[in-house]
């Protein structure tokens, strides 16, 4: 493995070189300081490298311009482009300019670097690859095969049980977008396909700034896809990173979630699968709900079998665990579980199995908040009532409670009653 690193920061060059040499004992790593040298000239043996790591900000140069120049050469190796966090439009431009992969510099870990280099170079350098890598490479190639008018599918960024998720861009203005493609094996499952396509129909009906925008959807014999908004701010899972949020921030996010639920409930839609991975943030910090894959219209014919449980056990309401008919209050309970996690950094209930966690929702009283969070205890109690008759009935009631009890509380250190 021969790798060339072009970055204006000597510490980062050293670190990346260290990771590469540690992983591939025979690796040869060359560093290129763009503060001292211009873009490699025609006489530079670029083709002798398997991979090139190129930074976006080169001090006095523009990494995208360097990328364009280097990619004009027939001997240009695979390029891993480093971008700033939260700036996916640069990633889009880099991928369109020929980069083979990109990583956000601030989030670049040893594992991500090595995985990316391995995936980029494996096809050319190895005759056999692991089944996991082969699956990922198949996912990458699927993205390249799918044709969506006006959209360029760029890179696999996530995989779920039913679908693969790609970064894409709108041709013309390079606006970053997300394309979700249903897995081929799921496509044969009529119920799963129906759920996937229903997500479009549901979201289209909502038209709220608190709900992810869907731009297009389609279906062919081979693929079914959704084109939707890309969220620069990532999801709540990433924002939490296993820790609590500042209480004021937790309350702000929770309030936004209540507005979101108010909007979808008004249309008669239950989400039924609220969890940190489904709460997304835009660049300006506003929140939007994602993944209506198991949501359903309250009046729709329920395609779930009797007693079938859909959702994520950590965030399920007691009635959801029991497989009972659901109403708005199921989402209110799940939002309460999320608020607890945002305030404490802990899951409401722990368990060794999903069933154990689910049963806690049925039988175990929620743990009390610690002393300095007592201000929020009454709110949480009413969100997490196991008997839904005693719970807040809808998002409006919660928002009213917040306004009366929290936002106007003269002394925020006092417990609310």
């Amino acid at each position, binding site marked *: 493995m021969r790798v060339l690193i072009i970055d204006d920061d000597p*510490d980062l060059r050293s*670190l990346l070189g*260290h990771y590469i040499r*540690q992983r591939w004992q025979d690796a040869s790593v060359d560093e290129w300081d763009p503060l001292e040298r211009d873009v490699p000239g025609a006489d530079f043996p670029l083709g002798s490298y398997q991979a090139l790591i190129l930074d976006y*900000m080169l001090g006095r140069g523009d990494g995208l311009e360097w990328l364009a120049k280097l990619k004009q050469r027939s001997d240009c190796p695979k390029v891993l482009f*480093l971008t700033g966090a939260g700036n996916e439009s640069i990633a889009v431009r880099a991928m369109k300019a020929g980069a083979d992969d990109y990583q956000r510099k*601030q989030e670049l870990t*040893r594992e991500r670097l090595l995985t990316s280099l391995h995936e980029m170079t494996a096809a050319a350098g190895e005759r056999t690859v692991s089944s996991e890598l082969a699956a990922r490479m198949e996912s990458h190639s699927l993205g390249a095969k799918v044709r969506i008018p006006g959209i360029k599918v760029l890179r696999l960024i996530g995989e779920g049980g039913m679908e693969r998720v790609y970064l894409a861009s709108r041709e013309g203005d390079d606006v970053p977008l997300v394309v979700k493609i249903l897995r081929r094996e799921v496509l044969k499952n009529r119920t799963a396909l129906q759920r996937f396509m229903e997500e479009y129909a549901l979201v289209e009906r909502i038209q709220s700034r608190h709900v992810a925008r869907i731009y297009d959807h389609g279906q062919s014999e081979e693929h079914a896809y959704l084109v939707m908004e890309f969220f620069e701010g990532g999801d709540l899972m990433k924002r939490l990173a296993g820790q609590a*949020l500042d209480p004021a921030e937790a309350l702000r996010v929770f309030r936004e979630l209540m507005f979101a639920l108010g909007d979808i409930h008004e249309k008669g839609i239950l989400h039924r699968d609220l969890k940190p991975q489904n709460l997304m943030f835009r660049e300006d910090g506003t929140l939007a709900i994602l993944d209506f894959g198991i949501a359903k219209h309250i009046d729709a014919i329920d395609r779930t079998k009797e007693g079938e449980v859909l959702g994520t056990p950590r965030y399920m309401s007691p009635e959801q665990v029991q497989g009972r008919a659901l109403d708005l209050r199921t989402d209110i309970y799940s939002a309460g579980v999320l608020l607890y996690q945002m305030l404490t950094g802990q899951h409401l209930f722990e368990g060794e199995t999903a069933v154990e966690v689910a049963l806690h929702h049925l039988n175990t009283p929620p743990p009390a908040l610690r002393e300095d969070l007592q201000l929020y205890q009454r709110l949480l109690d009413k969100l997490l009532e196991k008997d839904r008759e005693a719970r807040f009935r809808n998002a409006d009631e919660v928002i009213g409670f917040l306004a009366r009890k929290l936002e106007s509380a003269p002394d925020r250190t006092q417990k609310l009653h």
Partner: protein
Amino acid sequence: MTGRAGSAPIIPAMDVPSYKVTVARDLEDLIPVFMNNRKKELDTLRVALAAADFEQLRQLGHRMKGVGNSYGFAHVSTLGKHIEDGARSGDRGSLEARIREYADYLAKVEIVYE
């Protein structure tokens, strides 16, 4: 992030865990150079601020933001972002506070290898 405003310190008090940084054992050889470069960076930040060279301050902040997390020094990245933002808006008071905070951080940071 949290709702802290303007030039208020990011680190709320001394001896909070953010002064303690855990670094992978195999990076031990790289850390002395890394820390030395951070101290040089601090000097350059001070000179750039004295000269009101906001473009250089922005570049230095951007570099801190990029490299801090990579080595496990999340607070260097956080301060870098604030310095980059402060340089963009020409907020001299905020930049002074952040650079003072950076000096304090570098003087107190404790590195643990695991």
